């Protein structure tokens, strides 16, 4: 059985042109998928968690739900975290649980593009959906971003090679710049690579903005980049008919954090006075944008939301998961579609070992290994339907074309059971 136009549930590219062939209830092959996506589809059934468990001991789903309800109902400060690798219906349930228990709700954007959101809340952002890049962009800058390793088809689907309405020769009609601290494979494919010193992006972005404004710069180099190269980039940016800056964790995770993005936004906004320019954050997980989007429309805030006073409060740096764990403040955690045990710095991760943790995931991870309650769930986009939001905010429907193993429910269904249990417990 062949399925076409399947949406890939891995990264923020959310490619929707995959072709999946199913035979005897298994995925036989996937076409148009990048190597990571291939791995996801072809290995989705491997190493799946065998059964729900409490303290490592296998048991029935109902018992794990009961235990989860017990833990959350008696917690004073539960942390609900993750959400970027599941569909929006599940995310909606997580918000409800956080509100019901008066806990803290956070998602993986706090360690990814949270700083981009902080910058947006300060100065805004000039953005577009990816089709405009495909159709119009004649200048593309990858800043602190390495799509050849993290967004494998971005270059062929959106930003470099595609032939667009006004960019009919594809890559030939585009100038590609890469700004990074090292020469990545992305840099190698660019027309020009600017090697920048560590933690100096802020200075370089401001310098470019000053040049765009017509200021003179008295320096021979800025951020380790020779002034001639900086001036060339500024000129090319102003000459472009439609320029775009794609930026990634190189900006969000180095010293300036949200101030780096603030500077990038400022540069692009300034460029809009001369020509058309946009910027796009390279969102990592396939539905981290969805986690922000759903949380924002339901609570007003995108992540780092606290419900302890009965209404949503927002304070990144205080209610973000790593900080909550650093302070040893959470006395329980519900982790959905994420692996903080593997991805958080050790001092934050170790607090997870000190508190009862409930984790919903498909496969064993460091987080499930640290959890009291582990519930195996269906893979969204393969075994469960739902919506996901692409890195540029475009919403697509994830398909289900394989049944999950007997007894394995979706994230949304399990969270629904937990909500029902919590409401009953309250009475």
């Amino acid at each position: 059985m062949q399925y076409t136009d399947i949406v890939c549930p891995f990264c923020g590219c959310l490619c929707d042109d995959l072709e999946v062939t199913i035979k005897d209830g298994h995925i036989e092959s996937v076409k148009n998928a990048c190597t990571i996506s291939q791995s996801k589809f072809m290995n989705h059934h491997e190493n799946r968690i065998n059964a729900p468990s409490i303290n490592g001991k296998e048991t029935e789903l109902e018992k794990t739900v009961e235990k989860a309800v017990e833990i959350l109902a008696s917690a004073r400060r539960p942390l609900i975290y993750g959400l970027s690798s599941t569909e929006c219906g599940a995310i909606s349930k997580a918000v409800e649980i956080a509100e019901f228990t008066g806990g803290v709700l956070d998602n993986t954007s706090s360690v990814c593009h949270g700083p981009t959101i902080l910058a947006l809340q300060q100065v805004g952002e000039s953005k577009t959906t990816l089709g405009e890049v495909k159709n119009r962009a004649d200048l593309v800058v990858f800043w602190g971003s390495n799509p050849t390793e993290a967004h494998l088809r971005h270059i062929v689907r959106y930003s470099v090679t595609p032939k667009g309405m006004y960019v009919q020769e594809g890559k030939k009609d585009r100038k590609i710049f890469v700004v990074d601290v090292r020469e990545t494979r992305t840099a190698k494919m660019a027309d020009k690579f600017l090697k920048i010193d560590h933690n100096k992006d802020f200075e370089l972005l401001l310098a470019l903005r000053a040049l765009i404004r017509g200021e003179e710069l008295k320096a021979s180099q800025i951020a380790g980049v020779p002034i001639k190269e900086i001036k060339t980039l500024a000129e090319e940016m102003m000459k472009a008919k439609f320029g775009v800056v794609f930026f990634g964790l190189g900006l969000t995770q180095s010293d300036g954090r949200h101030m780096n993005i603030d500077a990038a936004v400022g540069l692009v906004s300034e460029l809009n006075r001369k020509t058309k320019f946009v910027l796009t954050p390279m969102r990592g997980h396939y539905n981290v944008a969805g986690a922000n989007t759903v949380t924002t429309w339901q609570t007003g805030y995108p992540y780092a939301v606290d419900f302890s006073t009965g209404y949503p409060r927002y304070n990144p740096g205080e209610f973000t998961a790593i900080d909550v764990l650093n302070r040893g403040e959470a006395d329980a955690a519900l982790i959905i579609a994420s692996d903080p045990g593997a991805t958080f710095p050790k001092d934050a991760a170790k607090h997870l070992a000190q508190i009862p943790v409930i984790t919903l995931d498909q496969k064993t991870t460091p987080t499930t290994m640290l959890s009291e309650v582990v519930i195996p769930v269906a893979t969204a986009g393969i075994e469960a339907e739902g919506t996901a939001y692409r890195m540029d905010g475009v919403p697509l429907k994830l398909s289900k074309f394989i049944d999950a193993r007997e007894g394995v429910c979706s994230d949304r269904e399990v969270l629904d059971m937990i909500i029902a249990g919590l409401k009953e417990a309250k009475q």
Partner: protein
Amino acid sequence: MTLVIKNGYVYDPLKGINGEQKDIFIKEGKIVEETSEKDAKIIDAEGKTVMPGGVDLHSHIAGSKINIGRLLRPEDHRKDVVKRGKNTRGGVGYSCPSTFITGYRYAEMGYTSVMEAAMPPIGARHVHEELNDTPIIDKAAFTLFGNNYFTLKYVKEGDIEKLKAFIAWLLKATRGYAVKIVNAGGVENWKWGHNVSGLDGKVEDYDITPRQIIKMLAQANEELGLPHTIHLHCNNLGMPGNYKITRETMDTLKEIKPKKGRSATVHVVHCQFNALAGDNWMNVKSGAPYIAKYVNNHDHVTLDLGQVIFTDTTTMTGDGPWQFALWNMTGNKWVNSDVEMEAGAGVVPYTFKKNNPANSVQWGIGLELALSVKDPWKIYMTTDHPNGGPFIYYPQVIAWLMSRQARTDTMRELNRACLKRTGLSNLYREYSFNDIAIVTRAGTAKALGLTEKGHLGVGADGDVAIYDIDPTSWRPSQYDKLIKTFAKTSYTIKNGEIVVKDGEVVSAPMGTTHWVDAKMPQEIEEELMKDLERDFKQYYTVSLKNYPVEDEYLPIQKIHKAGGGQ
């Protein structure tokens, strides 16, 4: 179970009921003839005002634009936090309310239907997801057409049949209710960082004009027999002197033959922003008299106010270049959001200040329009939420419309520009309760073609608002009472169920999403599909198969048929 509302002063303009004391009977969610009160739930509305549930025909409540607004403005949220209740979710309010709060607050004001004014087609799924999280109210969303690649293509080719087929197809694909146009041609030029100037300016890559786009969409709209006219945000919004282009735009549509049964061929939105005279923001003055004169002499136009409220609010429109201009004027934070092949948007916080001469003129213009257009069936009350101000200020607007003293008292606090540069101080007219019922529900429902809304005749949806005010003893000097009364109903009834009592939400069922399914001849549809298949593949970044919104996104829907399938 029958619900009976007894002895209220009923305002049902579509049925000619003007403050009569009358009983209303609701059974199985619909208004019915008078029937037995045995076993019925009785609501005593003695001394109270009873109206059909409010119908807001233009508001920004769901989708990527309003969500950008929410994301952009944590500082706005902190002003207005809402705790979760027994039956209600928590959230935030003010200018960019979260979805649950949006539904509750509209219902608290007695509104039971709200139209999302602008839906970018590729983001339709997002709009519907948010509408599904907006409790109580019935809703619909207007699909953006005015800068869509296919619209421009068919306008350029002069192919009205294909354009009609496209409209029918896109309304279905997006589950939209009406044809929305924002700065026709200008948002397409903005894809290169430009705008379009004037009705006959050039849409660069297509060599067509805004006039052509608007006319052809209007013609297609009427020939398709869609329930609402085109919903039009005119070119040159926010530019002093623009009353001229607004008037010219209205005039260019008088030749369009309206659908049978109506005389209107266009609804001009938030007209205040497009009724500016003067040359620049220093000498801006009211263009309302010219617009009102035109509307008074022609029957093919309806408009809504876009009334200014003096507060810190958030502007958000699909008019990308206008929002860029506003950023340059104010220096406030700015989000621009272009949508491939289809549309654009921009969000910029803005504060309307009483001591700002331009703002005081703008405030005056909205009300001057409302009071100068003689026929209340042509002009509706909105603030273009949240552009002119948050919808929670509707009661304040009602007060200004119904009480000259309310207007005068406010004017005293304003910069004198309002006095000098608008005609508002010379207008003594005061809206009656009947007028208010028209401009907030009967007229809007009629303009929208929602035949079961906006009235209390037999067969109407059982959507009723009961306000704690005695219209026979109320005097315009008591405008504070209006503000209080219209903010929180005694009862709001939705589909025969009490959802609000004494200003508090007691039940939050999900409302219905309305959309239009227009039929086109099969051969044209087939031709259209060929274009779509080819152009989606070449130019879009999503596949055509994944584009139309699936049924699952509309758990409760009502389909309005139009065109051949009527």
